């Protein structure tokens, strides 16, 4: 603190006029008060975590090509979202009017818990997840470079064996449901995620289930 050694020592000069002895200490209390006030203000108002983003690539709008709505591949799964509910079917869609070899498509229900959709996806996408595990091991053993790791992971995700997912929503599904599902798909390392429009007949199936 600003403190000046006050004139000690020296002789005692009698009769000499002495300056008034006042303390050289400044009262710092108000300044400290202000400092802490500001500190509290900034601590409370500052936001440190920048918002995060999750990117999602939508399929391009088909222009002249008639879209092949049903995936012909067998390792595809279609999720149908309704208000806080989630249904799915595997493979191709067979409407009631044109049933497939196993009859028309029947929707199955699952939920957003770890035992529901996460387990389902982990089982179905075991091929990619196993491949990723192998890559992770190699990565830990420093046998792979970062770029190679990423490239190989993308190759795994693009493999025909990898699970493809279609996401359809009805008119009651909320954005939270949608983002939650996309999040689960990202957790399960799904490479191909296609949010597409729901078919009228599928909508009816969902309505029947929700009832």
């Amino acid at each position, binding site marked *: *603190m600003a403190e000046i050694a006050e004139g000690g020592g020296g002789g005692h000069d009698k009769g000499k006029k002495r300056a008034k002895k006042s303390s050289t*200490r400044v009262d*710092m*209390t108000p*300044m*400290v008060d202000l*400092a*802490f006030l*500001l*500190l509290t203000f*900034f*601590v409370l*108002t*500052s*936001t*440190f*975590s*920048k*918002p*995060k*983003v*999750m*990117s*999602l*690539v*939508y*399929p*391009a*709008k088909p222009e002249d090509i008639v879209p092949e709505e049903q995936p012909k591949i067998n390792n595809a799964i279609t999720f149908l*979202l309704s208000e806080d509910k989630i249904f799915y079917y595997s493979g191709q869609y067979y409407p009631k009017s044109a049933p497939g070899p196993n009859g028309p498509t029947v929707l199955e229900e699952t939920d957003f818990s*770890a035992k529901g959709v*996460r387990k389902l996806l982990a089982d179905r996408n075991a091929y990619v997840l196993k491949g990723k595990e192998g890559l992770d091991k190699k990565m830990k053993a420093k046998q792979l470079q970062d770029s190679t790791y990423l490239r190989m992971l993308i190759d795994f995700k693009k493999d025909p064996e990898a699970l493809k997912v279609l996401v359809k*929503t009805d*008119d*009651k*599904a*909320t*954005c*939270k*449901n*949608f*983002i*939650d599902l*996309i*999040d689960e798909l*990202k*957790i399960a390392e799904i490479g191909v995620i296609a*949010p597409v429009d729901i078919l009228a007949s599928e909508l009816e199936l969902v309505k029947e289930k929700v009832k």
Partner: protein
Amino acid sequence: MPKIKMPKSSPSIDMTPMVDLAFLLVTFFMLAASFRSSEPVEVDVPSSISDKIIPENVVLVTIDRGGRVFFNMSDPEGRRELLMNMAGKYKVGFSEEQISKFTFMSSFGCTMQELPAYIDMPAEARKNLNTKGIPLDSTNNQLRDWVYFGNIAALNSGKTAFEEAKLKGDSPDPNDFKPKFTLRVDNKALYVHAQNVINVFRDLDLNNLNFITSMEMAPL
């Protein structure tokens, strides 16, 4: 008998180290703080495990709980160009003051015709204003124009930023300067509303979208 002399100590404590520390912290928080610009709507975003931070050059569309649509763009220079283009298309006049106010505004959700009056409002009044959001139906698709001109403006300002970074001697990645299209959706908003906005983007061949989410822990 000799008396024990107590050392005469001043009753005031030396506060210097504490004050030093307090000011150090004040300085730190002052510099580190990034203030949230006051948005006209409160949006409760969903959470995801994604840890990608929000990019610099963004065109942001907000969808609130009721499905109202708000538009925002991060770059001030781009906003000026955007507003000029929009004013030309919709034949709405803006004063110089309104334009400069617009460049520092946060999200807005009103029609082009209401915009001059909206810009003149104080920030608090904007929050309480009962707007219908930016119209995006097929007969009056203003959002499409906002996104279209926003994309052009953001591309231009991204290019300038890229050239500047190049002049500095860095080797920047041009992809970092391209505009990113971001959606901030409310948890409770119906996905149909988001879908309408997404279709606007897809109509313009902008298929790579980002959703703003809060972070959550990834499961082990």
